[in-house]
């Protein structure tokens, strides 16, 4: 109940913000009868109405993760974001091994298999991508081995 109500409220607010920012879209002097504002505003109105329906007629709540599971999910998100930033400056091998190992550990918390998974995936995928598929990946940070 409460989950759907909150989500509905978020949808309504987002839709209103979307409509508001649609009114700010610049129009050029050369335009068609509809223009660049109308369609997004229509989408926003439909979304806001559906959000209201969700607030008024919510479904039963799902089971949300709590405690350790929630922590594991947060760790996974942080690791993935860090990985996104690290891929370019640090090369493929090291960030991939670390990220894969951590994700593996979050799914099944055993340290040794997780580390082996990380190393195996990192090296195996690098060979696959670099040599079999010919992607231009950089293995190590710039400046190493050069």
């Amino acid at each position, binding site marked *: 109940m409460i989950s759907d109500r909150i*989500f509905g409220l978020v949808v309504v607010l987002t839709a209103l913000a979307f409509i508001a920012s*649609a009114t700010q879209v610049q129009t050029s002097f050369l335009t068609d*009868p509809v223009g660049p504002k109308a369609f997004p505003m229509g989408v926003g109105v439909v979304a806001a109405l559906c959000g209201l*329906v969700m607030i008024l007629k919510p479904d039963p709540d799902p089971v949300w993760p709590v405690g350790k599971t929630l922590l594991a999910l947060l760790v996974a998100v942080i690791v993935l974001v860090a990985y996104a930033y690290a891929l370019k400056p640090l090369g493929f091998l090291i960030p991939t091994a670390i990220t894969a190992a951590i994700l593996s550990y979050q799914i*099944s918390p055993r340290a040794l298999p997780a580390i082996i998974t990380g190393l195996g995936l990192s090296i195996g*995928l690098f060979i696959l991508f670099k040599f079999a598929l010919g992607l231009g990946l950089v293995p190590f940070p710039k400046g190493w081995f050069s």
Partner: protein
Amino acid sequence: MDILSNLALGFSIALSPYTLMLAVIGCFLGTIIGALPGLGPSNGVAILIPITFTLGLDATSALVLMTSVYYGAMYGGRISSILLNIPGDEPALMTTLDGYPMAKQGRAGDALVLSGVASFVGAFLATIGLLLLAPLLARVAYLFGPAEYFALYLLAFCTLGGMASNNQAKAAIAACLGLGIAMVGVDNNSGLPRFTFGNMHLMDGVDFLVAIVGLFAIAEVFFFIEGHGKGSSLGVKLEKVTIPWKDIWTTKWTMLRSSLVGFIAGILPGAGASLGSFLAYMSEKSLAGKDGGFGTGVARGVAAPESGNNAAAGGALVPMLTLGVPGSGTTAVLLALLMTLNITPGPTLFTDRPEVVWGLIASLLIANVVLLLMNVPMVRVFVRVLLVPPWILLPGVTMISFVGIYSLSGSYFDLLLMVGFGILGYVLRKLDVPTVPVILGILLGGHMEDALRRAMVIADGNLMYLFSSPIAIGLWIAAVVGFIAPMFLRGVLAKPQRVSD
């Protein structure tokens, strides 16, 4: 005899050793993707798209590879349904109802072979249907102007929202979300940026591949972390695999009927393979009556959903190729592939690029035979794949997703966006909001707005133009009915619960 000469053209392309090799690789990968729980057809095809790109395949080859993967995944989904009682992908859900009980009776091999043959019948008939119906529909599609296209896009969202979800409001929100995201970037008509908030990375808009991989693949990883990879051990042993001729013979009419039902369900824009297998199973169940023993592991209950599912997969290609409107989540991903290859699906595709269409249809026929050969004698190989534990599989999927998206643009921003879509996909699925309409919205949003604006230019702003032709009116009525009717049919169309041990 147009069709025969066209088919000859198709086979001349599809039978080249290189294309044939791609079809075999695609079938193999596809079956694995379908078999692995947590890696469905849409997600598997989405991950493979960036990689296909960097391989530099031409349009026909890329399309052959991906549709083989698509057909293969539809075959593969049944393996984990039967052996693990976990559907390998969503359409295979109905196969668990009779497949798993049959496997528990020690007839796992029979169930796998029977469902493989049923898949072949469904997919084969649907491919024949596709090659007969698609050119006809392509001719009708010439009558479509912007007003009709606008109504058609609306129909796709309505049937998808109405049939595939349990709550219309949530499906509509998902569609609006996708449409809203599609608006980000430079406006095609005026050339001015919209909703970019001054962010340079957003000027190009949101790449749908980033959204697809995030919503499907990354979200799946979060679900596995939440479930700690539970429920992935082999439930049933696979003993000797023999061919159950008797079961295959007794289910022949079931297979034919289910193929027809599935094919029709597949053609409906937005409905897709899940609806096909569902309707096929339910209609066979009611035909068999109470004495049919559906749900206890009968052969008909295994054959029906698999024929329906694979026939729907073929049927879903009809609107995708002729009108550019996908009939299911996975065909939406295939549409994304076509768009990135700079092929505009639609009636002109059949006249301008016949080699693409007919090469594709011919390789579907070949892929089907390859899949039957792979899935009956070699089924043990794929059963072995199910033994890959999730703590290796899911990190692997994540890494492949990252590399794929990274190789598209080489920017960290797309990767962040992908993680963002992963979180969004997790929250949406938790709240029972379907994610396929989001994808469809992102894919079709630009076209839908263009169609509306072009219609309004023609009619000089008169809204009634949208309802000015019989085709448009028919589509509007179908859209409204498709969205509203399922509300009243909830009781009849309620999905049966999964069998529990």
